[in-house]
């Protein structure tokens, strides 16, 4: 459609005032479109492109605030920061953990969210209230969510208390001591908080689907599972993909919950990549090193986008 733009103001009306010519130009599609995206472009330049240039520069120098010089005066380190990353087991372990969260949280949230969405496709008494309740977790500050789960799963907290009531005094679980359980508890909090999001997307998507194909399949005698598997699911595919992608990318950034619940502990066993970068950059003050890690992550995510999201756009 870009080709259908209208030429600018009629040149034969050379004496038309600037204002009227501008007004006419605004009506021209291409000009109007450009005008409308300009604020966003400016903001992206300001918040994305310039910082990206800075972060790349920072990653190539050896700068820590405690050096006593400003960042542009710091000596070049070239690729030394990057070389250091490749030897930094803690970095890769943190990346691995973040990916683990993506898979575990993303997968479970999707499953639960889809289940809920299907459940909610039909009316039942109190649906509106239940919907409100389900959406509530998203609205709580994440720090408070982390706090709530930390307190619930405390060694002598309510969850363990209930366990001892049901299964005897030996039945407490040291949720935050075992690395896997600690990670699991964090993921649980994430699930609790973000399933509503997936529920919303999938529920909206299901609601927007055309009804005819389902009815047609029903008339052909397909059972519910077959309808779901062969009719609903394929139609829902684009929604599912975007939901999963968005959720996966958000989950990869997980910070608040870990920060509040375990601080990355025991040791570094629940340290995610956001937390590690935060710690390196803003606690240890190794900003150049943090910058190199940031750049590496930007590159990795861009690659993932190329290979994972491009198909969605095309499909």
């Amino acid at each position: 459609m870009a080709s259908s733009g209208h030429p600018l103001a009629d040149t034969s009306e050379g004496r038309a005032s600037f204002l009227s010519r501008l007004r006419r130009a605004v009506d021209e599609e291409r000009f109007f479109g450009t005008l409308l995206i300009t604020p966003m472009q400016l903001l992206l330049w300001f918040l994305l492109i310039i910082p990206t240039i800075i972060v790349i520069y920072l990653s190539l120098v050896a700068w820590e605030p405690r050096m006593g010089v400003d960042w542009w005066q710091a000596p070049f380190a070239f690729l030394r920061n990057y070389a250091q990353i490749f030897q930094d087991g803690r970095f890769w372990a943190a990346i691995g953990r973040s990916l683990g969260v993506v898979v575990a949280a993303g997968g479970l949230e999707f499953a639960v969210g889809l289940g809920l969405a299907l459940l909610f496709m039909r009316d039942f008494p109190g649906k509106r209230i239940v919907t409100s309740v389900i959406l509530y977790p998203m609205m709580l500050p994440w720090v408070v969510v982390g706090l709530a789960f930390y307190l619930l799963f405390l060694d002598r907290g309510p969850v363990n208390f209930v366990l001892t009531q049901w299964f005897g005094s030996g039945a407490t679980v040291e949720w935050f001591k075992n690395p896997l359980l600690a990670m699991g508890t964090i993921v649980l909090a994430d699930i609790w908080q973000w399933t509503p999001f997936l529920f919303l997307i999938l529920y909206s998507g299901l609601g927007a689907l055309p009804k005819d194909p389902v009815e047609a399949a029903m008339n052909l005698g397909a059972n519910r599972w077959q309808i779901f598997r062969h009719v609903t699911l394929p139609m829902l595919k684009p929604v599912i993909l975007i939901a999963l992608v968005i959720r996966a990318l958000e989950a990869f950034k997980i910070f608040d919950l870990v920060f509040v619940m375990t601080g990355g502990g025991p040791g570094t066993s629940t340290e995610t990549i956001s937390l590690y970068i935060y710690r390196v950059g803003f606690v240890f003050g190794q900003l150049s090193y943090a910058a190199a890690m940031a750049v590496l992550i930007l590159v990795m995510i861009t690659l993932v986008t190329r290979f994972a999201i491009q198909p969605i756009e095309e499909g």
Partner: protein
Amino acid sequence: MASVRVEGLRKAFGDTEALRGISFEVRDGEFFSLLGPPGAGKTTTLRIIAGLESPDEGRVWLGEEIVDRVHPKDRDVAMVFEDLALYPHWSAFDNIAHPLKLRKVPLGEIEERVRAIAGMLKIDHLLDRRPGTFSGGERRRVAIGRALVRRPRVLLLDQPLSDLDAKIRQEMAGELKRLQAETGQTMIYATHDYEEAVSMADRIMVIHQGQEEQTGAPQALYREPDSSFVAAFIGSPAMNFVPCKVERAGGELVLQHRAFTLSLAGEGLLSLPDEVLLGIRPEHIRIEAARTPGALPAEVDIVQVLGEEQVLDLRLEDGTTLKAIVVGGVELKAGDPLFIRLERERAFLFDQVSGRRILGPGL
């Protein structure tokens, strides 16, 4: 109000050529129809006239003005879209008044003109309601009202009646015709339904695959179709086409078909190609009870009864099927043997390759 002229319109969307050189002229006050199957380029033509698309080649005149560089909002062209495109958040009154408001017509006059057009369209009672609750016919009236209220230079109608049920469609078509007659509004009406076009338009242009097939008054198109496409498109049930060989027996030309042979009289037919299509409309096939010279034996295959008329699917001896319409008379049923006679003076010959008319009416 103005005349419209387009010349040499070409438009491609990516690889698909929507228009391949369309030219026509609509006289001031004329009801002109663009007729063609879906995808023929009707909508694109209208959109180019409105300025919603710009052609790759060609020009558009409104009256004496070339409007290529005039923005659609300034062309003073109104259009009724296929989906009507009513503003769902405004009342019918506001919908209709919108063009007037934009033209800064005084409020009193707006009120007056909207009421007048609503009266003409019999939608006075709907003015305060939003379109969401309207029936299909009501929605169309509002859309037409919105287009007409400002007396545009030309009114473009893009299949506005397409998904109405038959009865309302006929009713609306009649009203539209009356409205056009009353207002003398120049209208271009795009449709794929020949009956609509035939019943309303002063002139019709049949287009096919982005090209003009034939332009003319409805009767002319029916009586003297220039191509097998036009012949098939206009009339229902469609014209029968029977592929035949042209053979020269002595000095005489003979139309040879497995089931029949027709000798062609007349001079100057020596340039006929070897293979042609014989075209004959169902209403021009006569049924005869007994064998008379020149009559062909056939068997009734399917019978559709439409009131007084019966539409028959007939099978000739070699298996060729023809449709025929019988008015009144005996009730026929499948399997009945009978004899038919083609009205040669209403038959055509078309080129099998190009579809152009070679001969006719009358062989």
